[in-house]
C-alpha cells in the first residue's frame, strides 16, 4: 500500500496534480463553510457553470494563459451572481428559479461559444477548452500551480483580515448592520472571494463538479464542530484530502481508461460527507442511535 503510494507520487505528473487539487480543496473548503452556513450552497453551482462563457470569451479575445482565462471565468461568474441578485430583488421571480435559469442560460452560451471557437479559431485544438467541463488535473502545469497557489493565498489572506466581520455577517447579518458594519460591501467581498475560489478550480475539477468541492468539505466539517474556526480548518483538511485522494484514484483507474479527475475528487469528498454524517462528533447519526438505545434501557 505505502509502496504503491510512493511509486504514484514519484511520478511528477501525479505529484503536481495532487498538490494543485489539494490547494484547491483547501481554498474551496474554507470558502464553502461560509456558503453552506449562509444557505447559499448552490451559489457555487451557478458560478462554475456561468464561468464557461467567460473562459470562452477570454479565449476569443486572445487569452491563452491560465490567469487570464480564470479572470474571464471569474468576471462571468460574478456577473451571473449579480444578475441573480437583480432578478431576485427587482422582480417576483423566486431566487431558486433565478439561480437555475441563470446557470443554464450562461452554460448554454458557453457551449455555443466553445463550439464556435472549435470551428473558427485556428489554434483552438491545441488548447482544448472542453477540459474545463470535467477537468483534468494531470494537465496542470507549473504555471497553473503558481496561479492556484498565489490566488488561493490572496483569498485566504483577505479572508483572515475581515474574519471577525464575516463571521458576524454569516451568523447575524441584522445585528451586523445595526452596529454599522458595511454589510453590503462585506457581502460583495465574500461573494467575490467565493467566485475566485470556484474559478481557480475549473481546469482541474471542471465546471460541472466544482460546486461539490465547495459544498461537500464544508458540510462534512459541520458535523464535527459547532465553532466556525474549527469548521474552517476541518473543511480545509477534508478539501485537501479529497483533492489528493481523487487525483490518486483517477490516476489508478486511469491506467485502464481516461478518467477525468473531477468525478473522482467529488466521490472522495462525498465519502467524507457520508462518514461525517454518521460518525460526526457534534451531531452524528450513529451517536443519536446509540443515545436512543441507552435511553430506552433506562440508564439515563
Amino acid at each position: 500500500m505505502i509502496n504503491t503510494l510512493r511509486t504514484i507520487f514519484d511520478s511528477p505528473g501525479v505529484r503536481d496534480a495532487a498538490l494543485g487539487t489539494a490547494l484547491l480543496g483547501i481554498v474551496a473548503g474554507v470558502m464553502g463553510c461560509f456558503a453552506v452556513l449562509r444557505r447559499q450552497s448552490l451559489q457555487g453551482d451557478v458560478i462554475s457553470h456561468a464561468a464557461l462563457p467567460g473562459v470562452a470569451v477570454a479565449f476569443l479575445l486572445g487569452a491563452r494563459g491560465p490567469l487570464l482565462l480564470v479572470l474571464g471565468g471569474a468576471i462571468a461568474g460574478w456577473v451571473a451572481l449579480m444578475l441573480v441578485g437583480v432578478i431576485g430583488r427587482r422582480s417576483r421571480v423566486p431566487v431558486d428559479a433565478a439561480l437555475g435559469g441563470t446557470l443554464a442560460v450562461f452554460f448554454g452560451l458557453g457551449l455555443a461559444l466553445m463550439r464556435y471557437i472549435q470551428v473558427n479559431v485556428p489554434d483552438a485544438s491545441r488548447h482544448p477548452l472542453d477540459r474545463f467541463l470535467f477537468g483534468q488535473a494531470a494537465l496542470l502545469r507549473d504555471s497553473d500551480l503558481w496561479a492556484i497557489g498565489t490566488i488561493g493565498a490572496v483569498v485566504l489572506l483577505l479572508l483572515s483580515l475581515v474574519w471577525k466581520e464575516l463571521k458576524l455577517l454569516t451568523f447575524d447579518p441584522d445585528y451586523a448592520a445595526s452596529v454599522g458594519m458595511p454589510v453590503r460591501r462585506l457581502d460583495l467581498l465574500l461573494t467575490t472571494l467565493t467566485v475566485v475560489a470556484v474559478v481557480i478550480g475549473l481546469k482541474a475539477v471542471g465546471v460541472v463538479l466544482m460546486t461539490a468541492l465547495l459544498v461537500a468539505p464544508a458540510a462534512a466539517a459541520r458535523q464535527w464542530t459547532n465553532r466556525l474556526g474549527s469548521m474552517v480548518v476541518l473543511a480545509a483538511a477534508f478539501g485537501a484530502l479529497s483533492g489528493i485522494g481523487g487525483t490518486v484514484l483517477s490516476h489508478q483507474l486511469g491506467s485502464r481508461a481516461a478518467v477525468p479527475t473531477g468525478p473522482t475528487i467529488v466521490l472522495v469528498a462525498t465519502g467524507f460527507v457520508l462518514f461525517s454524517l454518521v460518525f460526526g462528533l457534534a451531531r452524528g447519526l450513529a451517536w443519536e442511535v446509540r443515545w436512543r438505545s441507552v435511553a430506552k434501557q433506562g440508564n439515563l
Partner: protein
Amino acid sequence: MRELILVLAVVAATCAIPGVFLVLRRMSLVSDAIGHVLLLGIVLAYFITRNLDSPWLLVGAAMTGLLTVVLVELLQRTKLVKSDAAIGLVFPALFALGVLLVSVNIRNVHLDVDAVLLGQPELATVPRWQMFGYNVKPIAILFAVLTLNLTLCLLLFKELKLSTFDPGLAAALGFRPGVLHYGLMTVVSITAVAAFDAVGPVLVVGFFVVPAATAFLLTDRLGLMIVLAVAVGIVAAVIGVTAAERLDSNTAGSVAAALGLVFALVFLAAPGRGLIAAQFQHWRQRRTFEETMLAVHLYQHEGTPEEADEARADGLDQHLRWPQARVHRVVDRALVNGLVLRERELLKLTPLGRERAKQVFGER
C-alpha cells in the same frame, strides 16, 4: 433546420408545462438535480440490459430522477444539512458516479461523456429505441411526453392550482399534497428523460425554469402563464436554432442562450412589471408627490398673515428646501395640471389643488 426547430420547440414546450409548477412551488433546482442524475440511471440500466437501444434505459433514468428527490428529502429530514446543501451534495455525487462509470466501463460505445453532456438534437429524428418490435425515434417519445403533460395539466388543473397556491387549504379539503408532489416529481423526471437526449443534463433546468419565469412576469393567471411559457419556449427555439445555424454553433446551447435573451427582454420591458415600466412609475410617483407637497405647503398657509411670504414663487426654495431648478419644474407642472394659479408673485391654490392637499390630511 426545420427538423431541429421542431425538436427544440417540442423540448421547450414539454418542459415549460411542469416548469410553471416548479417555479411557483419554489422547486426549480430540483429539476437541475434530476437533469444531472439521469446519466447515472442510464448507465446502471445499461449494465443490466447491455443494450444501448433498450427503452429500459429511459425507465432507469426516470427512476434515478425520483430516487434523487427522495434522497434529497431524506437528507433534509436528518436536519444535519440544510435543504440547499442537501441538493448540492446529492446530485454532484450521483452525476460524478455516472461520469466515472461511463469513462471506466463504456469506452468506445457511443455514450461518451462529451456527447452526453452536450445533447444531440440532430439525432432526435433518427430511429433509436426498440419498443414492442418498432423502431421509435426520440422525437416520438418527446411528443408522447408532451401529450402526457398536456393531459395531466388539463385533468388536474384545479388540484395543481390549489395545492400550489394554498397547500394548507388543499390538504384540509382532502387533496393529497404528497401524491401531487410525487406525481409532479415523476412528471418532471419523465420529461427530463425525454429532453435529456436533445439538450443534455445541464441545460434541462433552463428549459424547465426560464420559460416559466418569463411567463410569471407577464401574467397573474395560472392558465395563461402555462400558455405563455410554452410560447416563450417555442419562440426561443426558433431564435436559438436559427442563430446556431448561422454561426455554426451548438444548437441546444444557443436555444438556452435565446431563452435568456427572451427573459431579459421581458424583464426589462414587461408591461406593468418590467424594469422600464417600474422606473416610469417611480418617476410618476415622485412627480405626484412633489406636486402634493407644494399643494400642502400652500394649503397650510392659505389665508394666514404669513401667506404673503410663504406663497411667494421665488421664496419656495427656502420654505420647501428644494433646489431652485426643482421648484421651477414643480411649479410649472402644477400650473399646467391646474393645481395652482399665479397671482402676481404669489401662488394660489385652485379648488383642485386644495382638494389634493386636503386628501393628505384626510379631510373631505
